[in-house]
């Protein structure tokens, strides 16, 4: 099955079924009127119906979107993966290395192959320091810190 649209539809359908099941755990109608389960149940149910319609629509000849058309290849794929993994990496390392080091590492990963290391490091360090000053020192937002406190 190489139809991308169908798989997106199936994923949305599964999510809506899961939400229908979860919605049933809350009262549909309470003692004093409609309960917290009413609206989510209707919405999830409708989402399921429209997911099926979407799957059927994606099977129509003119609406077919194949994986081969939408999946990035080569450098584009590497670029997309790098962005996703670098944000994920930030989530994992920042509680240990602190904001400054983690942010510089993430930016270096994203900048390095396209720019010389001096430019990459300069950009990464200056952007990180500006953000640190604005958010941490001026706006007083406690950013993740390392053992040394930064």
């Amino acid at each position, binding site marked *: 099955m190489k139809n991308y649209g169908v798989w997106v539809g199936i994923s949305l359908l599964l999510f809506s079924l899961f939400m229908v099941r979860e919605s049933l755990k809350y*009262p549909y109608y309470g003692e004093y009127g409609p309960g917290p389960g009413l609206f989510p149940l209707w919405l999830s149910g409708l*989402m399921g119906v*429209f997911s099926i319609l979407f799957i059927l629509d994606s099977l129509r000849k003119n609406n077919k979107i194949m994986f081969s058309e939408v999946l990035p290849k080569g450098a584009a794929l590497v670029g997309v993966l790098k962005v996703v993994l670098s944000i994920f990496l930030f989530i994992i390392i920042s*509680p240990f290395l602190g904001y400054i080091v983690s942010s510089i590492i993430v*930016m270096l990963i994203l900048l390095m192959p396209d720019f010389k290391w001096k430019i990459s490091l300069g950009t990464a360090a200056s952007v990180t320091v500006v953000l640190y000053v604005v958010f941490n020192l001026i706006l007083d937002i406690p950013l993740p810190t390392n053992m040394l406190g930064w």
Partner: protein
Amino acid sequence: METIQLLMTGFEIALSWQNILYCLAGVSVGMIVGILPGLGPSAGTALLIPLTFAMDPISAIIMLSGIFYGSMYGGTITTVLVNVPGEAASVVTSLDGYPMAKKGRAGVALGISAIGSFVGGVVAIIGVALVAPHLVKFALSFGPPEYFALILFGMTMVVGLAGKSIIRGVLAVLIGLVLAMFGIAPSSGDIRFSFGQAFLIDGFDFVTIAMGLFGLSEILLGLEQQMKKPEKPPKVKGLFPSRQEIRPSAMSIGRGTVLGFFLGLIPGISSVVPSLLSYSMEKRLAKDPSRFGKGAIEGVAGPETANNSFTGGALIPLFLLGIPSSATMAVLLGAFVLHGLQPGPTLFVRHADFVWAVIASMFIGNLLLLFMNLPLAKFWAKIASIPFNMLFPIIIAVSIVGTYSISNSLWDVGGLLIFGLLGYVLKKADIPVAPIALVFILGKMMEESLLQTLGLYNGNFMEIFTRPISGTLMALSVLAIILSIIAGMKNKKALLGDSEV
């Protein structure tokens, strides 16, 4: 008389030196957001919301709304000079603006669009100042059934105008509504769908959703397209139209102002619609339509004016009813809520100083933009030549720290990643993402008004049709759906999905 007095009080607040500075900062950032491809006004505004946490609500909204209308001006410059529309509404301007620049008339194109934008923006704001106070009484008579019907009507407009098909539009709306159901239930106070996780108790954060769906997903898609390096901007000289062009330009500006303002009143219309309609109207009314696409000045003046006038008109549903007209308006609405302001008719009564100060700041902001726009055109065009490879790591770094600062939690950064990927996957399936954010912000309000309505009528939903206002709005919603189904069948719909991101 009272309106003038209130407006004067608004000016007094908006003209304090710090508010002028915030306004200047907002419109400058807005210009940059409008100029840079890959960062639309919705993402740009969402990105800066965390910066306003420590500010007082008036200054915060003055700055954030400055980003919104500033981006409209900014998009024009790069469109005319280097044919790179920084935001979706500018695409229409490129049809005649860029050919004008090719003919050595870049200055005139920029001049007329700045004048048109200024006139459209200022007249629309005057319209808001004059009309809104009279509508407050009307809006105050809205009960839960009217609110429910109005939100539903707004959503049907979003669906009707969104994307490839009505199925995709409805699906996007439903995804947004289901996401809004996470967190505390409005009537009972139950915590829904938290799955025992503390970070889900309050549900998803709007800023995270907006930054993921608009910001990160655009970057991911941008990485797949080979961004071509913009060409060298041409010289900007002679900002005013020739004597023969003054009359047609003035007429286009007049028509664009009226069109944009009234379209702004309709919830759910994206900013591309007024530009597009104005362009086709100008083309239809022109004596020689063949000039269009080759550098007709009306093709720049009309859409640019309509675009900015729309921005002003859209403030009425936002301020009066708490209904955003576009994705960026939804982000502004999110900022209202974050700053403890409940949008709706009571906003005008309880926070009159806030509303009038923001309106007054828009006069000032439009004036600032007029002066910043033309003399600095070359400088702004230079910003557009920053390579995307350099730009996107900076946007990601700002997004990470911005989402983290919402509640000092790495879960929000995770949310950014998840919603970024969701936007990326859905856009590839031609499912528009703008409606998701738009309805997410309205979801709880819609649920609350529905539950109150059902409570009022002992569970009989059909009673909603018996009240004059809610009945009319429900009928209009049904009509909008039928019309978009017919339009879909005839396959004549313009592809306007995700137009404002």
